[in-house]
């Protein structure tokens, strides 16, 4: 096998076969994939089925705390997990620019396989396309996933009522800030890494024992915590009040955001979930989350309120209040 991807790897011939066998089947190995059919033939899942898809075009492909492959598995697993679903099967479509190093492709596949194992999902089908140089930025991934929602579990904005508590499962803004540092090659010394992680194990711990207390869950990826909470309240007859002093933010994240004029509330996360839970059960939910390695910094950050319907606002450190609006475009670093 040559050391870089060429258009011949996408021709459907011998090189394609070698690529699939040598990398994808080797790492993703499972009965459904090895059957090699045009479709994976799967057992029917019990209860309601959840189905999701997402595409990944991140730059850089490798970052502290992960790479595009790990991100793609986590993203899909998390989209299922926050719906209360137990993720089972995934697909993965690869769009690769010719010239891409095979070694990097293998590293990405390897970490996808490891993350899938951690999350307990199987990558059962896939597709590979090679595009001429300049037609893609190195590598794009598309993943879809299915899972099933255990009987009796129901999550819905309609269940939310004033007095419910807002919980975040850990520090916010880690992923977006880590990516920013690497993408822009900022000269900062930091141990900061992406929080990219599958959330299903941790969230199942909560829904399995306190499912009735959970109203809604969502992973605050692009647009960050602020945008996700706005999606919760939009058009609803309740609002959300955040407490600034309760927001878990790493010192490096708040320091760098301060320097660049950005707000951690709007920065992407890849290993965090927001939960709205029954106020009387919030402390127990926090206990369960903190008993999982990915939920050590879980915190109650706010409350559902009857005033300010449709809005998210925050009680600030100074004791004042401010509206937390949705993000407009990307956050851009400021001049001074």
């Amino acid at each position: 096998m040559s050391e870089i991807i060429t258009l011949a790897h996408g021709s459907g011939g011998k090189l394609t076969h070698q690529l699939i066998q040598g990398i994808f089947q080797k790492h993703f190995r499972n009965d459904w994939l090895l059957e090699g059919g045009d479709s994976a033939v799967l057992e029917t899942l019990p209860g309601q089925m959840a189905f999701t898809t997402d595409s990944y075009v991140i730059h850089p492909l490798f970052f502290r705390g992960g790479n595009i492959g790990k991100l793609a598995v986590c993203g899909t697993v998390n989209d299922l997990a926050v719906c209360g679903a137990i993720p089972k099967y995934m697909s993965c479509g690869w769009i690769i620019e010719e010239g891409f190093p095979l070694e990097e492709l293998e590293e990405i596949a390897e970490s996808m396989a490891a993350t899938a194992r951690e999350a307990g999902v199987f990558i059962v089908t896939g597709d590979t396309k090679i595009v001429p140089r300049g037609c893609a930025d190195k590598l794009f991934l598309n993943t879809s996933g299915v899972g099933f929602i255990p009987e009796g579990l129901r999550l819905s904005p309609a269940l939310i009522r004033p007095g419910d508590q807002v919980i975040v499962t850990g520090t916010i803004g880690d992923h977006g800030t880590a990516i920013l540092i690497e993408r822009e090659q900022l000269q900062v010394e930091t141990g900061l890494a992406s929080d990219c992680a599958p959330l299903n194990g941790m969230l199942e711990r909560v829904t399995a024992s306190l499912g009735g207390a959970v109203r809604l869950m969502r992973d605050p990826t692009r647009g960050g915590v602020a945008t996700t909470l706005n999606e919760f309240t939009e058009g609803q007859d309740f609002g959300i009040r955040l407490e600034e002093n309760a927001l878990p933010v790493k010192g490096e994240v708040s320091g760098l955001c301060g320097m660049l004029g950005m707000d951690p509330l709007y920065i992407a996360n890849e290993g965090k979930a927001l939960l709205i839970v029954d106020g009387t059960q919030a402390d127990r939910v926090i206990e369960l989350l903190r008993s999982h390695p990915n939920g050590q910094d879980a915190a109650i950050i706010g409350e559902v309120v009857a005033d300010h319907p449709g809005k998210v606002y925050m009680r600030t450190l100074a004791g004042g209040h401010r509206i937390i609006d949705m993000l407009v475009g990307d956050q851009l670093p400021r001049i001074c």
Partner: protein
Amino acid sequence: MISELEQFRNETLAEGLVKAIRRYDGRPVSIMEVCGTHTMAISRYGIRELLPPNVRLISGPGCPVCVTPSFYLKSALELCRRENTIVATFGDMMRIPYKGASLLTEKALGRDIRMVYSPLDSLDIARQHPDKTVIFLSVGFETTVPVTAIAVLEAAQQGLDNFMILSANKTIPAAMHLLSSDPEVAVDGFLYPGHVSAVIGSGLYEELAKAYGIPGAVTGFDPADILGSILYVLEQIQDNKATVANLYSMVVQPGGNPIARGKIDEVFEASDAVWRGLGQIPGSGLRLREKYRSFDAWSLINGSVEERDEEARGCRCGDILKGKCLPSDCKLFGKACTPETPVGSCMVSSEGTCAAYYRYQ
């Protein structure tokens, strides 16, 4: 969002300061925060609502993007459309609209526009692309100009002849004199910028206080810093005094930073400058000295863009920058002019007065 100890200190301190400020029972006063970062912090921490009704905060001209006139953007757009040209700019210049276009839309159309974090980054781009002209959009006050000066000095030293800057750099003192002496601008006190003052020093403000009888305080950006400076100004007003406190003395010295000022002086000389909304202010701009004129990207414009500031109809950015009205007094605010579709540049930069009011009102 800070360590527990700091949080405790700040919260109890802020609470005490708010109580003290609320005890102010003198005449109604307007205090201007000169700096955009202060405007943002005031909105961000909800400070305005903590003040009694007889204390009003108004926002001054301290956001470099907000005071950049429209012809500058027109020129930047013209330059980015040139062959073999790379335009390097700070992020918040990307979205400023000019007649339906912006650097962001030009980038989407394929122009080579790079977002940088320092003027020195654009110097690196010039080194990596010797076959292209790299133009850095140099917009900012005394905080950013020293690094731009260093970039020009380095380019000169290394004989880098494909690097240029389009300077709309401005200095704060002349604008402060104008604001203090304008009878229409009824300012009773100033919150002076922490970052700019680190370079120019706090001495200038003593002169202003003496000449115009307006007290002020140089301050940092934490809620307690800002509340402390408001309290100081109120105490001065109540005692009929007009002195200046330096509440940011860890960073700001009376004489400023002589090295940074030296770099500015070495590369730039004072010139007249057009401020968006404020008009032309003599001696408030910075242009490259004769010795460094070969780095001046204005030479590429060559008079093809008229140096005139065109405000959109109905836009009151000028009055807002002078503190004559609030963003909410502008008919366009929140309707035709929002962060998604900004009309005036006060709505574009995250630190613009209108953007700060809109986001955190």
